[in-house]
């Protein structure tokens, strides 16, 4: 992709003013989001790169929107902290792209998603205005919270140049547990059981495996209590749910990489509630798939995007294609239009951002 990479806010404003159609790219790590851009001018966020302010004591970090997630993660790690919303593609994406597409990984299960950790942003809108939304402290109730609106906005409303997040101390240790279940209903029962009990899981994922289904759990905490917590969890899952075999010892990284092994031309995120899984799964049982964050999100790989689009629509679900040459990344149910259109009217009245 040949993007213009403005080096300053001024240059970005000029770019916006000079073009009728603009499409924003971070690092291009989710190509499916960019196929519909057509002949629009590409604006890269790479010029807004680097950590601008980081105060570990404050639990806040501000970075340029084009900063690679890996750079932020490494700096946080040096201070024993992390981004609890767990960016999905830590090695290839920018922080701005992660926010725009709202892509979280497995560890989002513990404390929340991007919307729960974004505090503020600087943006340039479709009129070329540069301004700030939200704040820089962990708590702020002044004004409309447009920073949360940017999460999932796919660059259609404004171009982010700077983002501020709440960050948390990272638990010192992690352990993973894998249990096999005979069938999906058994796994869902286990998820419901866990939902109503106080196991503070770092991640809760499941996917079909060789003979049945595999439930992957992660716990985080202190070295001296983790073994007994894992054991208690394992025992109660064996006693109170239909867990067959399995145990500790899995590499936690396996639990944290929801996309591993999901081969197929297209890769689609589906937002759903656990109770909607049986209906969906029955129709995608021939596809590679994984259910993430306690069954509140599905990753489905397919070669036939049209089929999946129609299926999601039929089931009242929405999907976002992040890999593959999709004409539009949005699948299934149309997005809300009434309130979002008002924001569009204010931030991008000439419909520049596509």
């Amino acid at each position, binding site marked *: 992709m040949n993007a213009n990479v403005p080096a300053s806010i001024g240059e970005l404003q000029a770019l916006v003013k000079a073009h009728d159609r603009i499409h924003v790219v971070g690092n291009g790590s989710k190509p499916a989001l960019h196929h519909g851009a057509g002949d629009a001018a590409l604006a890269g966020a790479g010029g807004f790169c680097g950590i601008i302010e980081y105060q570990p004591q*404050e639990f806040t970090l501000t970075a340029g929107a084009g900063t690679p997630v890996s750079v932020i993660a490494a700096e946080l790690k040096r201070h024993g902290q992390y981004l609890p919303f767990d960016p999905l593609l830590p090695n290839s994406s920018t922080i701005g792209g992660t926010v725009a597409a709202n892509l979280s990984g497995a560890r989002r299960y513990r404390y929340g998603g991007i919307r729960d950790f974004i505090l503020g942003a600087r943006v340039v809108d479709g009129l070329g205005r540069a301004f700030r939304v939200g704040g820089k402290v962990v708590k702020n109730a002044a*004004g409309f919270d447009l920073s949360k*609106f940017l999460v999932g906005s796919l660059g259609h409303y404004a171009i982010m140049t700077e983002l501020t997040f709440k960050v948390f101390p990272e638990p010192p240790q992690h352990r993973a547990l894998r249990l096999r279940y005979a069938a999906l209903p058994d796994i869902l029962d286990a998820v419901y059981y866990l939902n109503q*009990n106080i196991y503070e899981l770092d991640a809760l994922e499941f996917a079909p495996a060789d003979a049945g289904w595999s439930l992957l759990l992660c716990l985080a*905490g202190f070295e001296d209590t983790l073994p007994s917590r894992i054991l208690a969890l394992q025992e109660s899952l064996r006693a109170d749910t239909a867990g067959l075999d399995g145990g500790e010892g899995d590499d936690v990284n396996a639990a944290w990489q929801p996309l591993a092994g999901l081969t197929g031309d297209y890769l689609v995120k589906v937002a759903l509630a656990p*109770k909607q899984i049986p209906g969906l799964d029955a129709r995608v049982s021939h596809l590679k798939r994984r259910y993430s964050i306690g069954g509140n999100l599905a990753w489905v790989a397919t070669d036939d995007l049209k089929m999946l689009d129609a299926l999601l629509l039929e089931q009242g679900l929405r999907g976002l294609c992040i890999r593959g040459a999709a004409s539009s990344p949005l699948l299934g149910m149309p997005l809300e239009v009434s309130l979002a259109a008002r924001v569009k009217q204010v931030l991008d009245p000439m419909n520049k951002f596509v």
Partner: protein
Amino acid sequence: MNHPFIQALQQIYPAERLLTRDVQLLPYESDGLTAFQTKPGAVALPVDEDEIISTVRLCHQMEVPFVARGSGTSLSGGSLPIADGLIIGLNRMNRIKRIDPRGRIAVVEPGVINLHITHAVEPYGLYYAPDPSSQSICTIGGNIAFNSGGAHCLKYGMTSNHVLGMKVVLADGTVTQFGSESLDGVGIGPDLVGLFVGSEGLFGIALEITLRLMPAPQLYRTVLAAYDNLGRAGDAVSMVVASGLLPGAMEIMDRLSIKAAEAAVAAGYPPDAEALLIVELEGEALQVEAEFAQLQGVIEESGAFEVRVAQSEEERARIWKGRKSAFSAVGRLSPDFIVQDGVVPRSRLGEALQEIDAIKSKYGLDVANVFHAGDGNLHPLILYDGREAGALERAEALAGEILAMCVDLGGSITGEHGIGMEKRDYMPAMFSDQELEIMMALRRAIDPKEIANRGKMFPGVEAPALQQHGLHPLEKQGVISRE
């Protein structure tokens, strides 16, 4: 109020749910910010969604301003009526429509009382996390309008972080829906839930809300540490944070609030403390115990002269009772008071407190400090005697200086009480003209006639006359207390 409008309302509401007589309107003249009073034109009390929608559409059509009202506990004048406008009172919209314990969600109407949700889901081992100290009386609709918080918001966030989806009627009568029952909320597309929460009733009325529930903590560990100066308590907070712990709550009280709380509820706080720090750990028992061991080490090193650990649920409740009653307790020491709500970066808490000390000496007024130290959210309580000429004006000026200081230190003019009527004039201290213009444009795009909560949030609109400050009528009756 104009007749055609009332007549049209009569088509929607039976007489007992449409209040127009002066005596009926009296209870709606004010909210938790008792300084302001305005008489509304009428009060409508809808019992279902359709009534609310018809009412909003009627207001839009006839250009009559309206204010949605939950329990009227707003401390920033958010639910203050508009003169001759309509109050849409939502207390009868108080059904919990559905509880799905397996999916850990509840679907509620906007008039449901915050604490009632926890009561309803307790049998399933669940609770609704955000805990404003008005939670026994304030509504989810009001919580949504202000993104309300509480003492336990450090770890799991404020109201916004617990709303997954909602159905709303926008101010122009458009009904729309966003979010879902997924933990991912809106998930795909811009986060409209995040935008609506905190919009202070200016976008429209929330009709139905899907809330996230959480498993009730298995164990609490509550520590009370006494210090011989306020700065040291502030430093202790930094030490806890630096140690990598993430407590559920971290609260500080200063000498004046300790004394007041002691006098009011005999919490048994150490009598000579200059400052108290409450730290509470919560969650899975084994993990909490491990964190507690670490916390004890940190508190020991922090120079506390006395440390108490709650040994039972009763002791824990007592520690919190003192804390939660502190403000109304201080209020009893003084004829009048103003509660402020500002935020500073946590690491500048010490500086902020010194600055408040200096400001108050300049004005010759007392200020008690109680705050959510974990997130730098200050609640200075300014004491004055309204019978003294000029005292109210001095108290207001003092409050203004504290807010200006919060902005100077890189914080915010409100952490959880909102802008409402009270802080409109401080908005320009935080936002540029352009930023304000964009927010106002957004408001007009949603509400072209500016009928929803007209006169709130944005500067430059004429304010109703100041009357007096003091306890909320419900506080006087001891029903609620504030943080």
